[in-house]
């Protein structure tokens, strides 16, 4: 077996010595230089370090969250009084469509992936994510998709058919102009980004875990994110297919959703909700992951029922694909089919119940440390459980027929999404902010923010249950005095203002703590997982020596480890981006792989992709000529550089 062709490259120089365990000072310095992003403007666009990309991703999603929140405040102001002339029907339709689209596509799903891209490598003991350049490309595509949508919104081309845009209202005849096209193309952007991120995260967890981290030693947070990414893999294609069909209907006259030519408008609803329901679980399951990371640390004990929790996560993932028709109970689908979906929609509550009881058992047998992250997690038990129970009511066909598409559903979805994902997410930000920035967030501000958020939330959304029962439909831009909805709508608006205040406090806390926050040690909360074993903020290459894991909470069990067992992995290059690749089941070291170096081509490929997507809204031929720059950029991105190849050859060892 020839050891690679000789005539094409220079003879390989002898291999430089790798890192030692623990790494010496100059090894650490060398590793920092190797894994760091290049400086300057070029470095900004060529950065592929997973922590840099993740911080930008989190910032972008938080920015979209604020924009979506402002839009929500505008909506609440319009609904505060009957026949309020502040906003007309056309602008209001754009407002609620933008609010829903922003929160679902530009905030909820991507922020979970952004946090995962930062934390998963740290928690599984890897120096980087798999496919770091693709990770950067996915971020840029996401950012350009969000900016495109908001650019369109500012030009009065914001979507106006809701965040699920049912044809025929979103179809070619009743949705004139390019509004729904920009919405459908935004789907293409965000789904492409989500799918690529899913590939990155799954491959990182499968192939790059620290030696010894067998399947039953993977942290529960990583399990939650792993299950979420598998759901992304199988859910997103449905909405991409559906939105491609919608754009083809609108632009080149196909008849997928045209009943007159044997298309069917319900085909859209099936395709959308086959993605739609896993989508809301994509948002909720990472919330479960945050809880499973925060509760053990603040109960000072390992999570109760680890195996039950993992099985619950996996079964939630599977079941979420079986219940999309509960969004379509009011259509004329056969009744027997609907009863099946009632049953599955109810049974999916069991895995969540298992997890809630395991958390309660963990808290019930632990010693509690009431810090801000735990506060936000405890709010989950109040808000999510209430939202889950109203969900059971919506799962029943007769009850759903009364409250479907009313403000009861608006209340339910906010209880499960904000209670299930946003509260745990804010708790997670308080929990990992020290690791991201090396600074602690202010506890007092945190408590103020928590109580404002908790009270404001309930004051805003609990009355909506009643509004829904009193007949207030979703998405109405105004109502008359006789309806009797006035006082509760005013109350909800006041609550929304309180939520706004709490978000302001959050921004202040985030901003001030960057400079005035107390400096954070490596493990400020006494956590057990690997990310607490390295400095805050972590060095560019995370671990100077990749650790060897002997249990579920390596940091807690560090003192127990017997001194003769290997502590870490030595021999990885310090002057090249080498990362250990391990086997899937038992994480046994398999080979060391040199990872790609920073390159500006992912960014340029993302720009080319954006040009293709936006131009294809106006002419179908853009898909053809637009593909040329994309192919060129991707080819140059892939094409190996001579210098890089030479360095690889110096480290090359054939399998």
């Amino acid at each position, binding site marked *: 077996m020839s050891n690679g062709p000789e005539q094409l490259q220079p003879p390989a120089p002898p291999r430089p010595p790798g890192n030692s365990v623990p790494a010496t000072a100059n090894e650490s310095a060398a590793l920092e230089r190797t894994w760091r992003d290049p400086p300057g403007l070029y470095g900004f666009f060529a950065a592929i370090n997973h922590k840099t990309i993740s911080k930008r991703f989190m910032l972008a999603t938080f920015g979209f969250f604020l924009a979506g929140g402002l839009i929500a405040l505008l909506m609440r102001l319009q609904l505060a009084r009957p026949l309020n002339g502040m906003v007309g029907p056309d602008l209001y339709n754009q407002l609620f469509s933008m609010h829903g689209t922003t929160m679902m596509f530009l905030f909820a799903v991507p922020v979970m992936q952004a946090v995962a891209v930062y934390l998963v490598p740290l928690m599984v003991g890897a120096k980087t994510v798999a496919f770091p350049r693709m990770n950067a490309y996915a971020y840029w595509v996401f950012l350009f998709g969000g900016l495109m949508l908001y650019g369109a919104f500012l030009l009065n081309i914001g979507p106006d058919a809701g965040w699920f845009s049912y044809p025929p209202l979103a179809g070619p005849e009743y949705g004139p102009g390019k509004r729904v096209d920009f919405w459908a193309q935004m789907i293409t952007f965000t789904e492409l980004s989500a799918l690529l991120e899913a590939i990155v995260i799954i491959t990182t967890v499968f192939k790059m875990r620290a030696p010894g981290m067998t399947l039953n030693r993977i942290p529960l947070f990583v399990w939650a994110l792993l299950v979420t990414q598998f759901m992304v893999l199988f859910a997103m294609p449905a909405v991409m297919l559906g939105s491609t069909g919608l754009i083809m*209907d609108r632009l080149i*006259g196909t008849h997928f959703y*045209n009943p007159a030519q044997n298309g069917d408008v319900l085909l859209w609803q099936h395709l959308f909700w086959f993605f739609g329901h896993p989508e809301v679980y994509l948002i909720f399951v990472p919330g479960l992951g945050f809880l499973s990371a925060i509760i053990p640390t603040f109960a000072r004990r390992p999570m109760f029922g680890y195996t039950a929790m993992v099985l619950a996560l996996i079964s939630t993932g599977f079941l979420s694909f079986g219940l999309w028709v509960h969004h379509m109970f009011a259509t004329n689908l056969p009744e027997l089919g609907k009863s099946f979906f009632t049953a599955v929609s109810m049974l999916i509550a069991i895995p969540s119940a298992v997890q809630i009881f395991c958390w309660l058992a963990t808290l019930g047998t632990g010693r509690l440390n009431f810090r801000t992250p735990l506060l936000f997690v405890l709010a989950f038990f109040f808000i999510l459980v209430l939202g889950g129970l109203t969900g059971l009511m919506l799962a029943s066909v007769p009850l759903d027929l009364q409250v479907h598409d009313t403000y009861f559903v608006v209340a339910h979805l906010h209880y499960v999404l904000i209670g299930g994902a946003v509260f745990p997410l804010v708790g997670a930000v308080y929990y990992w902010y020290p690791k991201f920035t090396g600074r602690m967030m202010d506890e007092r501000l945190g408590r103020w923010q928590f109580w404002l958020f908790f009270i404001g939330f309930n004051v805003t959304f609990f009355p909506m249950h009643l509004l829904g029962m009193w007949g207030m439909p979703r998405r109405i831009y105004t109502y008359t005095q006789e309806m009797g909805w006035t006082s509760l709508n005013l109350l909800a608006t006041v609550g929304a203002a309180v939520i706004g205040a709490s978000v302001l406090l959050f921004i202040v806390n985030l901003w001030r703590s960057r400079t005035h926050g107390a400096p954070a040690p490596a493990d400020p909360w006494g956590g057990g997982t690997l990310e607490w074993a390295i400095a805050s903020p972590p060095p560019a290459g995370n671990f100077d020596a990749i650790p060897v894991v002997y249990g579920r909470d390596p940091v807690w069990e560090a003192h127990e480890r017997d001194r003769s067992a290997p502590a870490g992995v030595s021999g990885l290059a310090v002057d090249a981006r080498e990362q250990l690749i391990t086997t899937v089941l038992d994480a046994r070291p398999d080979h060391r792989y040199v990872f790609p170096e920073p390159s500006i081509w992912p960014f340029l490929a993302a720009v080319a992709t954006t040009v293709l997507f936006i131009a294809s809204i106006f002419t179908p031929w853009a898909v053809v000529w637009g593909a040329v720059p994309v192919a060129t950029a991707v080819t140059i991105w892939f094409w190996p550089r001579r210098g890089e190849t030479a360095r690889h050859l110096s480290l090359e060892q054939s399998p």
Partner: protein
Amino acid sequence: MKKLALALAVALVLALAACEREKRDFEPPQGNATAPTQRNSTIQPGQAIGAAPPSAPAMPTTAYTVENNAFALSQGKRLYRWYNCAACHAPGGGGDWGPPLSDATWIYGAEPQNIFLSIAQGRPNGMPSFGSHIPEDQIWQLVAYVRSLSGQVRADAAPSRADAISANKPENRREKETPVIRLPNDGAHNK
């Protein structure tokens, strides 16, 4: 710096085009003339008004054209269907009793004002006068749609396919015809 200015200028033009295409203005223009002072055709839908027709200002001279606005074009398409223009001009404007509207030949001129007068005052050989029956802003929407039938309108504003059985191309995919004025050889159209 110049490149930046150029890019900004292009962006501005695109923005203006987008704004104009996406406007949804529901309020009709002032002076909504409903009855022409003059009729070129004896027939009209419904009944002729016995007493003096409601006073109406003279026909607007300036073309209040809405043909770059997608909403107005889609309203025009709806009115083309609602007011049954297809009965004589065929659903896609292919022509039947009435002359085709989707080809290049025009008898009374292809400009918006010409089409406006055809609709409002009617034309000999069977085109009824709709002046007092269709408000002016709706006539302008119909005018815009009629021009889109022969591809005179920007493709991104033109309506796409209808949720109907449609044998012919949607308006946004029709090639732009170059209008030719051709007088009728004594009603050859109606044979």
